[in-house]
């Protein structure tokens, strides 16, 4: 498990590895759905250096507005 640089949840996992062995891995956070590659700069990969303006608080995710709203079932 890996720490998400954006929401700092600890449950991110590897979703892909480079076709050439050992060059990079791609991780996905199941909480905020952030995706990143191991070779990206620290401003993307390091939770402490991730741009504060783009950080996500996991507690706020359930309250995100629905776009578009879910249509009421008629049939």
């Amino acid at each position: 498990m890996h720490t998400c640089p954006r929401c700092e949840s600890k449950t991110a996992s590897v979703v892909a590895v480079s076709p050439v062995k050992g060059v990079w891995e791609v991780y996905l956070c199941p909480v905020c759905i952030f995706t990143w590659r191991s070779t990206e700069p620290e401003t993307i990969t390091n939770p402490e250096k991730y741009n504060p303006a783009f950080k996500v608080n996991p507690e706020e995710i359930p309250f995100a507005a629905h776009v578009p709203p879910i249509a009421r079932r008629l049939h």
Partner: protein
Amino acid sequence: MAYKDFREFLDRLRQEGQLLTLTDKVNLEPDVAAATRAVNNLGGSTPALLFNNIHGCTNAQIAMNVIGSWPNHALMMKMPANTPLKDQFFEFARRYAQFPVPVQREETAPFHEVEITSDINLFDILPLFRLNQGDGGFYLDKACVITRDLEDPENFGKQNVGIYRMQVKGKDRLGIQPVPQHDIAIHLRQAEERGINLPVVIALGNEPVITTAAATPLLYDQSEYEMAGALQGEPYRVVKAKTADLDIPWGAEVVLEGELLTGVREFEGPFGEFTGHYSGGRSMPVIQINRVYHRKNPIFEHLYIGMPWTETDYMIGINTSVPLYQQLKDSFPNEIVAVNAMYTHGLVAIISTRRRYGGFAKAVGMRALTTPHGLGYCKLIIVVDEDVDPFNLPQVMWALSTKMHPKHDALIIPDLSVLPLDPGSEPAGITHKMILDATTPLAPETRGHYSQPLDSPLDVEKWQAIIQDMLLKK
């Protein structure tokens, strides 16, 4: 003859010197997006980019900026690469009027070469990468997304081919942004009212005409495929999906078949948008991918989007202007001269028109606001006289400078609809809109001193030809 597929168009760009192949090794981040942003910074005649040596990948190829300049747009239309913008506009309008051209159906397509029905992993199939630093992940933003109207499924015209941003949210899972003003939102609503999933096909790496038609604000029951046929001057080739009653561009590199999940919303974004701002942090619908087809060694076509101008602006410039032009001409056939709605997808639009009497130009502006595209865009309409070229911004600025009187010619209409991505809208999706009438006052409007417009000295055209000839020989 039309381009049969994406590769044939890339070959044409290469022949014209409009495709730059980067053979030196690049990193997926930040190099591919950075190089594309850089080429966008270099002006309006730049080439497409093809990356074929990507660090960590074996056979991956990525094509960027494919329609990202006026020469490439002209080549899309099979016109000479140096065709002036205004000539491209009028030729596009002429072909647009040929709509509809029925499709040509095929049984098989090159993308059937490889079929994946289990253990799908989009991160392995496509060389996905981040475009902008604040993006929440890796996106698909130039794919044709195809869905059908559930209440009128036999109506070919109501099948929609559109381009929507899609975040890759798992090995076989995408998030999608269906903006309420776009047709796919109607199909999604129909599915959710029935409590069923909406079948969807996503085609990546298409020849540029269907991409252009898919990005054109057509009327709801107008087929993008039949418009593509009109734009390319011959029937567009489609092939049926194997698991749904959906038609797919024959020449696609990669095809994803799946379902928009009913009643599901999930955290999405942010994503750097064509407005030059990020949008996101909202919960949006999700697509489950069940089947993938692709050509062997597919070329991944992607689009850099960001602060204008980028490829997006070339891709949705003329094809946004022409529907507005045609719809205005339907109302005012003898007056409308040209429409330039190329600025941020038509949030700003400039209309050149003749006038019949005082107040007429303001009515033209009001009509633009009530066109289908105007409901989501057209925040600022500038109306100019028939002798002002709306594609020539210095001329437009001259008209605003001299013809517009703020007391009489600046109209603000409160609380109209706009796409929610407009960062200035408050609440998102609502904005005041403005019409600036920069036409010459006409009776019974008699204000101002406009009776002595300046003319040119005699023989200017003759001298223009002489001097141009001298400059060419220099």
